[in-house]
């Protein structure tokens, strides 16, 4: 049935941190990127501080991202040369001796953490860096890995749905991580005010090709059965860190001893761009063979191929949603995690006074 929770085009909270870019994307040149419907011009000051300004000059709305960086922290409009500092205040206007006191562009709070630049598109008074989701595996010396950015042509919530239920691996990722045991195994869902967890164990199974390769990296020549786990940790509004791995069957992984296995964390954080597009930042971090750049590259490329399969499905799904405006979503038992995510998002949106939502027709 068509309730808010099953809205097909889900609105996004604004009073929250979203990743605007990888650390290496934000430089002493200007990056144009839209976050939560707000076009931003992103750059760094000379002392390395990230800056996110609204990407439209106060004067005639020319995009500042086509402009030039000047001095320690200023950006100059490409059209008439108005200059703004990192706080978005105009510091220079052409052909006059004073500066119009109204001349500002919004400056969004920006913080660099966990190899990402995070921005807060909503009320800046509420922007507390302690609210940034925990993605510590990205920078913790106990973990190694890398990731990428997917420009996904779908509503961000479809990506969250995808990651909160990994049953789809059996059907979408048949050649890498999919296996029939996924839809046979039980899963346990739990939640708090800001988190949702879905845990699934598959004991005494054959490892799929991706995991057999990883086991052999750590345990050369490994053969045999494994115990496999997927523990999905969602943090509102759109960060999902998935604890995944396999260990030699019966060596105590479910009880907490993972020493006979390999462990990865799939770090996903999804930034709404528009109603129908999102920036999907992901990384695969591992806690074994930390010094091997070869394995880092192999895993990044391998996961890139796997996520390419998801991206194709998500785009096809978004197109089908838009092509069938008269049909609504129905839910399955496997959607428990995704539905809790939707419920928590609904509460964030209510707190921002942005509900009720009527399902949006295609267009």
């Amino acid at each position, binding site marked *: 049935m068509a309730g808010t929770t099953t809205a097909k085009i889900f609105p996004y909270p604004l009073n929250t941190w979203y990743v605007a870019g990888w650390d290496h994307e934000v430089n002493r040149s200007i990056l144009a990127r839209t976050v939560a419907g707000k076009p931003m011009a992103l750059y760094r000051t000379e002392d390395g501080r990230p800056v996110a300004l609204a990407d439209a000059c106060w004067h005639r709305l020319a995009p500042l991202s086509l402009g030039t960086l000047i001095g320690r922290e200023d950006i100059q409009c490409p059209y008439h040369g108005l200059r703004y500092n990192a706080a978005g205040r105009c510091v220079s206007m052409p052909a006059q001796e004073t500066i119009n006191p109204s001349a*500002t562009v919004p400056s969004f709070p920006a913080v660099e953490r966990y190899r990402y630049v995070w921005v807060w598109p909503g009320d800046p008074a509420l922007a507390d860096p302690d609210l940034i989701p925990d993605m510590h595996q990205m920078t913790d010396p106990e973990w190694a890995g890398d990731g990428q950015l997917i420009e996904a042509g779908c509503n961000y919530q479809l990506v969250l749905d995808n990651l909160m239920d990994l049953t789809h691996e059996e059907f979408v990722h048949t050649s890498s991580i999919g296996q029939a045991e996924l839809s046979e195994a039980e899963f346990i869902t739990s939640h708090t005010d800001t988190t949702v967890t879905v845990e699934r164990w598959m004991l005494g199974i054959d490892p799929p090709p991706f995991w057999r390769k990883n086991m052999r990296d750590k345990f050369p020549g490994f053969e045999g059965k494994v115990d496999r786990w997927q523990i999905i940790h969602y943090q509102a509004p759109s960060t999902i860190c998935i604890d995944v791995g396999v260990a030699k069957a019966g060596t105590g992984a479910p009880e907490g001893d993972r020493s006979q296995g390999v462990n990865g964390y799939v770090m996903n954080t999804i930034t709404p761009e528009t109603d129908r597009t999102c920036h999907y930042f992901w990384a695969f971090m591992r806690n074994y063979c930390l010094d091997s750049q070869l394995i880092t590259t192999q895993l990044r490329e391998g996961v890139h191929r796997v996520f390419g399969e998801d991206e194709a499905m998500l785009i096809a799904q978004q197109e089908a949603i838009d092509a069938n405006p008269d049909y609504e979503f129905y839910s399955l038992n496997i959607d428990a995690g995704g539905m809790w995510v939707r419920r928590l998002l609904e509460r964030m949106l209510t707190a921002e006074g942005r509900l009720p939502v009527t399902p949006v027709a295609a267009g």
Partner: protein
Amino acid sequence: MATSHKEVWQRATVVEVRPVADAVQRIVLAPEHPVAIEPGAHLDVRLALGTDTVQRSYSIVDADISGSRISLSVFRSLHSRGGAGLMHALVPGDTLTVSHPLQDFPLRFGASSYVLLAGGIGITAIAGMARVLRDRGDDYRLIYVGRTRAAMAYLDELIALHGDRLDVHVGDENTSLDVRRLVATLEPDTELYQCGPIRLMDAVRREWIERELPIASLRFETFGNSGWFEPQEFTVRLPQFGIETVVGPTQSMLGALEAAGADMMFDCRKGECGLCEVRVLELEGEIDHRDVFYSERQRDARSKLCCCVSRVARPQLGAVVTISSS
């Protein structure tokens, strides 16, 4: 691009009125389309003044979290341009036409310290900023300047809320603010937000420039309604269009010229953009520059003025200004 600059009009119902200081009336409005209010935001109000519709800007002093109750506070001076009289006459149940909240005076978060300076009714723009900085635990000082305590709106509430972060300077108690000393003792990375009479704001600006503090860290808002002389009637002549007309004390020069049929160019109507600039050909009296467009040097030249807010004055005698326009 200000955060919200687009004027969209709506109806609002008066739900409460009460005096909060000598000649200051607090007016609580319930707007048709509530939105959350940022510190520094204001409302434009449309009022029927005789046969004319006039527009006035009033800062939002406080609001509830959803913006369904918005409080303005209106000062009615002896020389109010007529709008304040209408605002003071409002009673609960009245409705009026107001804009959606507009923001040209945004408070930036993340500065290492803040000074908020309010002169008289300027407290309406500053009080909300002080409250937010206090709630966030930021390092701020609030300075409130007035002629008499009885004329200072919200003084008791501010003392209770801000304690020793508040400095009060009262003219008739001989505790006037020493602007030079204030600016001289600021940390260089302080941001100063001010709203008040033009004399006070100009004095701060002069010291600020003299000390070579970063000009973008001095923030202010003026609706162009404060000057160096009391507003008085004067005559404006625009020979190129054969126009001569009288500008009443509650009228703007721009408004009077338009009413007399002159095709005038303008935009902001509050002395900021400079589009309404006219050249002064002859002058009997003094120019009362009420804009923030000209630098000190340009004002001294006395050859141009921003006709949306600036006036001319001559004690006892009627002032006359002859101008040319674009």
